[in-house]
């Protein structure tokens, strides 16, 4: 799962971050989960390879 992959990649990320600077989304259109918003002040947005 995307949420768990990100938490594994960046263990320092908190649930609060997912409520404030990171938004994961699924539009129920068959395309799956994706990062809609990544505004974390210090951590770079994960690449597709890192999330694969």
């Amino acid at each position, binding site marked *: *799962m*995307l*949420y*768990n992959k990100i938490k594994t990649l960046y263990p320092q990320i908190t*649930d609060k971050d*997912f409520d404030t600077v990171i*938004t*994961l*989304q*699924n*539009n*129920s*259109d068959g395309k799956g*989960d994706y990062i*809609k918003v990544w505004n974390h002040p210090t951590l770079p947005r994960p690449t597709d390879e890192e999330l694969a």
Partner: protein
Amino acid sequence: MASIITATVASGLTQSADNSGVLQLASGTGNLVTVPSVTGTAMVSGNMPAFSAYLGSNQSVSSGVNTKVQCNTEEFDTASAYDSATNYRFTPLVAGYYQFNWQLSCRNSTNISRISCVLYKNGSGFKNGADIFNTNSTIGYKVTGSALVYANGTTDYFEFFGQVQTTAGTNEFTAGSGADSYFQGYLARTA
């Protein structure tokens, strides 16, 4: 005084006019309606959109992801403005102020740490519903939201998203035979 248009059984349609600038409509005797001197669209039941749709079967979702709730079963949709087949969105074609209500029910096989529900407008979160944190239970929990919001009557659309956060296990938005997770809206007044 007023100019009055009256419909009666005895006389059919009659009218009386004066120069007051006030218009009244009468049906029979003593049932007067004064047409207000405002600019707007007269609303009757036929042109006031209202819909109610619910999640027809349990929806599996990922933890920590805002997921559109697939309210795919309509109870009513007076203006055919709700898409229950593909996008699960409400696109009213009458500009005005709409009241929305939504409820999300979730469950997981392990402990749930958070449940939330959000009304989206034009693809982005717009009004947050209730959150529950640290539920420490596997049973179903419900969160609700309601909001009065403006729609332009052309392009604005509304969707219902929910999120459940857990550390493991399978997450589901639950249907509950239509009573658990649902999305409703109606025109409260025109613009």
